[in-house]
């Protein structure tokens, strides 16, 4: 059964920059773990220490009880897709993988298998220099899979992938994590780091949140979200009657920005009341706290430090919003999120 254990993991760059500060965490088998945090939180540094590319200042991170550098066949234990990993532009995809396979002592038959697995079979004899970002990401993934590893580490894997590519990656990772390891244990460890929270929310089962090199939160995504706020927002011409009806049902409700906002309510509670009172409904939106707002509350609302992505368009408030954890509508017309 694969294990990852980080204990007191610390990395200091120069005298002033403490990139990772006494980090403790464990790899969780059987699911996809999201390694989340704003830029500069220490995600990439941590993953690179895990892979023996960066030497920790103190502390350790062990894979199956070993430092990566002392693993006998590292690529058969851990596959890694890293952002700053490169290709010689003049080499073909196939030659690139053959070189890595040769170094790692992996049979060359795996090369075509892995290219097939990531959908690059048709481009295998093309030079990597002409590859798109998405194709390079797939080639990186193929390289990571060469050794059939039980642990897969992906640093910002969604970068450069188009929506179909992201959907494909999501399905692939879910499938990969659920596969039983050779020893028949709980499953594989898949860790992805991401700053695209809406994407991460769809992929990950567990989250490890980092801020300023420290652990801000760790646990099941569902558990973390379960403890968060939810609300129902209703647009109706009979606003005042609805507020009174909700108060009669002992629910908290106020009129805000033309909406009746019922804090801590579910659509299942609100909808029957509206039917009962024959209140005309123009719009009903159920909102739960998203991973994004949970993330902002955990990381101290450092919204401005985040890389702007499609999901950071700020529905929950502007960059200077004093209440960072504002609920954000996620679903419409009463469907549960």
């Amino acid at each position: 059964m694969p294990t990852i254990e980080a204990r007191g993991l610390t990395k200091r760059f120069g005298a002033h920059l403490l990139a990772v500060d006494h980090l403790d965490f464990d790899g969780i088998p059987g699911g996809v773990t999201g390694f989340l945090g704003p830029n500069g939180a220490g995600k990439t540094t941590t993953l690179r220490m895990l892979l023996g590319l960066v030497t920790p200042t103190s502390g350790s991170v062990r894979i199956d009880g070993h430092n990566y550098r002392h693993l006998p066949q590292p690529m058969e234990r851990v596959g890694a897709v890293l952002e700053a990993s490169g290709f010689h532009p003049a080499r073909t995809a196939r030659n690139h993988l053959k070189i890595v396979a040769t170094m790692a002592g992996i049979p060359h038959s795996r090369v075509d298998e892995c290219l097939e697995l990531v959908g690059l079979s048709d481009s295998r004899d093309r030079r990597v220099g002409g590859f798109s970002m998405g194709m390079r990401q797939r080639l990186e993934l193929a390289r990571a899979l060469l050794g059939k590893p039980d642990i897969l580490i992906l640093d910002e894997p969604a970068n450069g992938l188009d929506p179909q590519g992201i959907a494909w990656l999501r399905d692939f990772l879910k499938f990969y994590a659920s596969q039983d390891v050779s020893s028949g244990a709980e499953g594989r460890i898949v860790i992805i780091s991401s700053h695209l929270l809406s994407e991460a929310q769809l992929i990950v089962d567990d989250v490890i949140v980092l801020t300023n090199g420290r652990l801000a939160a760790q646990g099941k995504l569902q558990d973390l979200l379960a403890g968060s706020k939810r609300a129902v927002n209703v647009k109706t011409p009979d606003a005042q009657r609805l507020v009174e009806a909700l108060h009669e049902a002992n629910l908290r409700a106020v009129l805000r920005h033309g909406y009746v906002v019922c804090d801590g309510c579910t659509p299942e509670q609100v909808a029957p009341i509206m039917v009962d009172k024959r209140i005309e409904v123009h719009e009903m939106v159920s909102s739960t706290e998203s991973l994004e707002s949970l993330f902002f509350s955990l990381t101290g609302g450092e919204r401005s430090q985040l890389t702007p992505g499609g999901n950071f368009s700020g529905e929950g408030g502007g960059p200077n919003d004093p209440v960072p954890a504002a609920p954000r509508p996620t679903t419409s017309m009463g469907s549960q999120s």
Partner: protein
Amino acid sequence: MMRLLRAETRKLSTVWSTYVIAGIVVLIDVLAGVAFAFAPSGRHGGAAGIVPRGSLQWFGNVFSVLDTARLLALVLGAIIITGEYRHKTVTPTFLAEPRRGRVITSKLVASFGGGLLLGLITMLTGLVIGFVFVGVGFHSCVTFSGVNQGMSHAVCGLRQGVYYSASVHTMLHDWWRIAPGVVLGTGLFGLYGLGLGALLKNQVTAIVVGLIFTLVIESIVGAIWPTIGEYLPGQAATALENAARSTVSNTSLLPWWGGAIMLVIYGVALAAVGTLTTVRSDVT
């Protein structure tokens, strides 16, 4: 270790830069060989400044360019390690083999092998040029030298045959004299280039430093302090070549084995220092 070496070989054979370097070696040999052969005065043109064509010394001039291959071996050695940093293939390399000392050791072997190959290529090119020159026949009836004008074809043909075999013998004699030294020196310069690359990491820096040191600084140091100069890489490689070269006075050169040892020390020591400093540092 064997698989790392096989991987290094494949790395070299799958990029065009390797073939470009080999092509440059051949190109320099041909162009400079022809230039030295037919220039008004030879490189080592004696008192009169003219070396008789087809003489031992004349072939010496033609072949004197062949050791330029060592500069390209230096470039090849530097590229073998700095290319990994430049194209960031160092990440997949160190993921596949995290014991970095082994990676560098296999690269040392690969750069020495690559250098030897360049040495062979340059010597074979020299051999081809030599045969072409002999074959074209500067002593023959159709030569541009004009020596045989007015002779009958029969006499001319006879003389041609005699001169041909004599010229081939002369040519091979001079070729053999320098071949082992050039091949070994070129191989060891590959090692030296790898050491520089491992230490300096940046491709352009490593190549520029290597070439400027060999072409400029060594000459200056050698001119001012010959006793120091003879221990420098370029002179050490020349010492290898001059092993059997009795025609050239080599008072300020090490014995050939001394030159070989110095070059091994340069390559291995630079690579070792590079491994302990640059190569061991974080890959980010």
